[in-house]
């Protein structure tokens, strides 16, 4: 399925529920976001932050409720369509960078482009992205030769290679020191602004929250909007 990219991307979540048997992880979550906005989700461990992120990223299905991205409910798509949808609309950055050690930095960035046949020169864009994350001179290196911050910058470039509408980050700075955290966070915001993506970040790092447009607090599966600009 070839997605038509909208002028402004949007994400709308209405009355979202998720439970695992008797355990209710998310209860009646609703919020909406548009392209160029950023949201940080915080909350204690087990509050359902990562689960919410995975539902938005279409990695998990909600038990109830609606998720609409660019006015499409992705969970109505078939499995192949959903995979392609995820490939083109959503970008992920995880706490563990999960770079493939056998490939070079450039190859790692290019990997998402291989899931489906695509037009255009992906390598050119990957090179540009690496330039923007400051790793031009490291593109032929292996992940093992990079520092933690550098690896996470590669993961960000990889997440953006297919120009996603939504960039989802699950504790992107969880394994980094303070200085590196700032660097990575700055990069994320810079690229988010440049790419006009919806940026959703799950973090425990409360120091970062003021930099986001919106702050959602998850407690026991319910969501409170702490701040909304």
């Amino acid at each position, binding site marked *: 399925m070839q997605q038509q990219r909208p002028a402004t991307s949007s994400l709308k979540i209405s009355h979202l529920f998720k439970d695992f048997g008797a355990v209710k992880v998310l209860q009646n979550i609703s919020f909406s976001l548009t392209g160029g906005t950023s949201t940080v989700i915080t909350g204690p461990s087990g509050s359902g932050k990562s689960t919410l992120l995975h539902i938005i990223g279409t990695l998990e299905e909600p038990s109830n409720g609606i998720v609409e991205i660019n006015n499409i409910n992705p969970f109505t798509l078939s499995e192949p369509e959903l995979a392609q949808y995820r*490939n083109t609309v959503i970008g992920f950055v995880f706490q563990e960078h999960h770079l493939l050690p056998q490939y070079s930095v450039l*190859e790692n960035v290019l990997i998402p482009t291989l899931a489906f046949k695509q037009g255009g020169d992906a390598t050119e864009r990957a090179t540009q992205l690496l330039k923007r994350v400051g790793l031009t001179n490291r593109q032929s290196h292996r992940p093992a030769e990079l520092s933690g911050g550098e690896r996470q910058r590669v993961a960000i470039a990889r997440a953006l290679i297919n120009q996603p509408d939504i960039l989802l980050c699950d504790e992107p700075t969880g394994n980094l020191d303070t200085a590196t955290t700032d660097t990575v966070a700055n990069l994320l915001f810079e690229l988010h602004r440049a790419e006009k993506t919806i940026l959703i970040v799950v973090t425990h790092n409360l120091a970062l929250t003021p930099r986001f447009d919106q702050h959602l607090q998850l407690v026991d599966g319910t969501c409170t909007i702490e701040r909304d600009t």
Partner: protein
Amino acid sequence: MPKFSWNSLKHFWQIHVIVALCTAVATGVLAGALIVGDSVRGSLLNLTTERLGTIQHALLGDHFFQPDLLSRENKVPTILRNGTVVVPQTQARASKVNILGVTDNFFTFWETDAPNLNKPEGQPFNAIVINEALQNELNVQVGDTLLVNMSQAANIHPEFLLGERDAAKAIQSLRMVISDIIPTENFGRFSLQANQSLPFNAFISLPILQSALGQDNKVNVVFTADTNALSADDLTLTLSALDLNIKADENHLDIQSDQYLLKPILSETTLTVASENRIPTLPTLTYLANTITADDKTIPYSTIVALPIDEGEFAELANNHTNEADQLAYQQADAQGVKKIESEKIEERKKLREEIDKIEKEVSRLEKTKRALGGTPEYKQQVAEVKQKLAEVESALNAIRARSKPDAIYLNTWAAEDLGASIGDIIAVTYYSVTAEEAYVTEIGLFRLKGVLPIKGIAADRDMIPEFPGIHDTADMSEWESPFPIDYTIVRAEDEAYWDEYRATPKAFIPLEVGKRLWKNRFGDLTTIRLGTMPGSDIQATRTLFETEFLKRIQPEQVGFQFLSPKAEGLQASKGATDFGMLFGSLSGFIIIAVAVLIAMLFRVGVEQRSREIGLLQAVGYPLAQIRRRFLYEGATVAGIGSLLGCLFAVGYAQLMIFGLQTWWLPAIGTPFMQLHVNLLNLSTGILIALAVVMISIRFIVQELGQIPTTALLDGETDFVEVTLKRQTKKAKSRTLWSIAKNVAVAIIAVLFAVFVIFDEWLSDTFGIWIEEPMIDFIMFTLSVIAVGWAAFDRWLKSQRVPKRLNRMRLALKNAARQPGRSLTCVQTLSLACCIIVAVGANRHDAPPESEYAFVAEAALPLHHSLNTSDGRFELGFSEKDSELLNASEIFPFRVLPGEDVSCLNLYQPQKPQILGAPDTMIAQSPWTQLWIGGRAEDGKVNAIGDENSLRWILHHNPEDDFIVQDEFGKPVRLKLVTASDSLFQSQLIISESNFTKFFPSQSGYQFFLIKTPPDLQAETAQILEKTLADYGFDLTSASERLASYRAVENTYISTFQSLGGLGVLLGTFGLALVLFRNIIERRGELATLRAFGFRRQLLSRMLFLESCFLLAVGMLIGIVAGLVAILGSQGSLPSFPWLSLTITLLLIFGFGIIANAVAVAVALRSPLLSMLKSE
């Protein structure tokens, strides 16, 4: 924490069940292989007991004897002859049949009822009982008539002048009626030969067979069930048992033999005993001259006696009848003759000197080129040719040296007058000699008449002339019935008159040494030894003393008796030439290795599953040693349960292998005789070895626990390449050490190999070790290709080069580089295994082997006439037309000393190999000259040819060492071996015919033949030979079929290896799948990330599958290419490469690998991946 927990075992039951099953497989394969060995040994042992019953010992004679000679009770006299059996109606024929003349006592060895050997009522012919094997061969039933052919028992050796060789007289043919057919078991399986093949047995009543052979009350073998071994003390020899007789006179005793010539051992002992007791002796050698000629007058068929002419009664008689004038006339004539001969000798020696100069130049040239060409067949051929020329020159020189003046001869007055001969005249004597090829050749001897004696005294004594069979009792010369040709037309009335008056009284006398020179042969050089009276005694006392002393000195083994212990020898031989336990253990090596590796990998997976548990235990303070012990105990429990299960599997595996040997791999054992024999000791050994292998594998994995940081374990990490710097450093160090160790090992192997290649000559000369040239090539090519393949793959794995364009294929293949060491190990293991399978498979020879000979033939009864001459063929009964056809063939006859088959077709461990005597005319020809075995080697050794494989693997003898056999007189003969390979002679050892007749003089005739025939005449030739020589049991086999039968065994072993090795590699592909499984488990985070980026599960599966197939393909490809290149490089071609079977094996391995990989991918990806992406 308990040392051991059933709960842990139960919780991780899946992995433990698989480990237990793998242990069961390892135990089953190992113990099963040992059970196969036990089963072969046990079955051979059973066969030995079955074929011999309670027979323990036997006295076997090469001639017939009275059984009373053996002073044992409970003895069973028997006649055992080799023969052929023909069905007159259908002409169906079986050769190599054991013809047994038995009484009912024979069957008591098996404690069974005797079959009916009585003449059937209303039948004109006597009864014969045959076994089912013979029945199947002949397709006959009870009541059918059979013709039984065997050699006639003759006193005089057929190859002596007076021996009977006429086919009609040499073969005893009996017409019998089948009265019973017995199963081929118990006495139906009787054989003195340790061989697993089914014997053809025919039983005849002993008195009937004795009567037919003219050997009343005599037998040639006596069996006993006594456990005490037979020895010379049990045998009471008599002169008659030695075929000796004494003609007694009041003044002397004439010792003579029924065999005409006195055997050398008997004549030597007679002279020794006489000398020691001061008994006067007169040794004589009597021969028959065809003619005695002086000028143009000739006397036909006369007896000539060779005796000491310068002593005793003869000297006295000669002196009394020779005057001075006679002596002077003789001396003058003799001197003139000597002068003439000497001048002739000088001239001939001059010519030979020139010939020797040429040979010396040739030797010098060969010496110079030895270093460069020493090992080539061409060089060996040239050396052999020079040796041959040298031998010819030496022979010519000896002939010149030996040529002497005419020897002295005395004629009696009748002969001298008849010839008109005077003292000093040349007397020519013609006589027959029998050549090595058993042809009569007329020889001539020149003598100078020294004296003329009256027919009286010793010159008229006929007692010293042994009786000529068919001659001595005839009334007229025209009635002579001799085995040699007689021209009755030259017999005159005067000769008949002489015969009437003087019978065989000798007409001429020559010196004994001259007679011996002319007429000595391998059967003896004296016909009579006359003993005088011992000083101070009378002739009777002399006789008594002589007989006593003489018999004391004769050892039974010297006169053709053998004391056999067939049971003990059979049981010893039952250990087998080939240890099938070791063989199948080796052939199953791949399976055992594969299973051991699998177990190690499985256990690793099991440990990895529990990495958090281990980390936790370490974190709370449990010592590492205790944690290791816990895993070891668990592992031991699982392995123990598995090995117990393996006992059942072992029996099943052994049963399967035995089934394979009885069906698919039957050529390896020849006859489906095997039964399952389980030896508890070997079963326990198998279990312990398998358990040890498994525990070593587990210990190896458990040992690695200490190398993993606790923090990493707590994180569930099991691959720590990038976890900590410490770990990296440690790993780097260990990698460095490993790398150094590998390089050092490779360097040592390379240096050793180089030393072998460069100093091969020196090593060969000094230590007698070398690597065959093709093997050097093979190793070099294999190592080169494998090393290049591995290096290229390693380089690719570690390549940092970024491809211009990344695609899914590249992505999948590059995944193999994630764990370069693991991938390289997979490829190395697979390539080595495939290389071995290809290389071993290439040794299969599926194409029919080629031979320069068309047929190999064996005769049950010896042939005494040449198949290469029309005369010989006429004697053997060939029609003129058939004889003409045979002119196109060249037939090489070999003498045969019966013995055991030493080829791979015999499973028993042979003790006494069959020996062939190769005709001297043949070994003088190329390519036999390369294996020159003529003459005697240094130190009195005898040159012999043996097949290298038979020597090494069946006789378990190093060809570099001399092989010792016993000659006919019980003396050891050292055979200096020259090896042949892949030859037609894998069942025997070969010596030259001249050596054969020297050491085994009583063996007569030819029973083994190589036949060269033009291809278009082969079918017709075979038919004619088999039909005409049917009575001799002449069996032809195509030479290439014979070679194929030997190769079939080798091919079968290779097939077995291919099957079991292939099975091992199949199991090894499980290991590859397990590696893939581990890779996937370790990479779940990455795979989940790919899923998050839109990679569908199917796409991931395809990529992972492609990755593992890539490793499988690369490994196999390197191995296959290395194997093929190595074979091409070392052998130059792939003449009979088994493409089909090898391709099937390799495709099976590849297919199985693919399936295993697919299963591994499916199982590994079944667990949820996306949970790996959550940060909490």
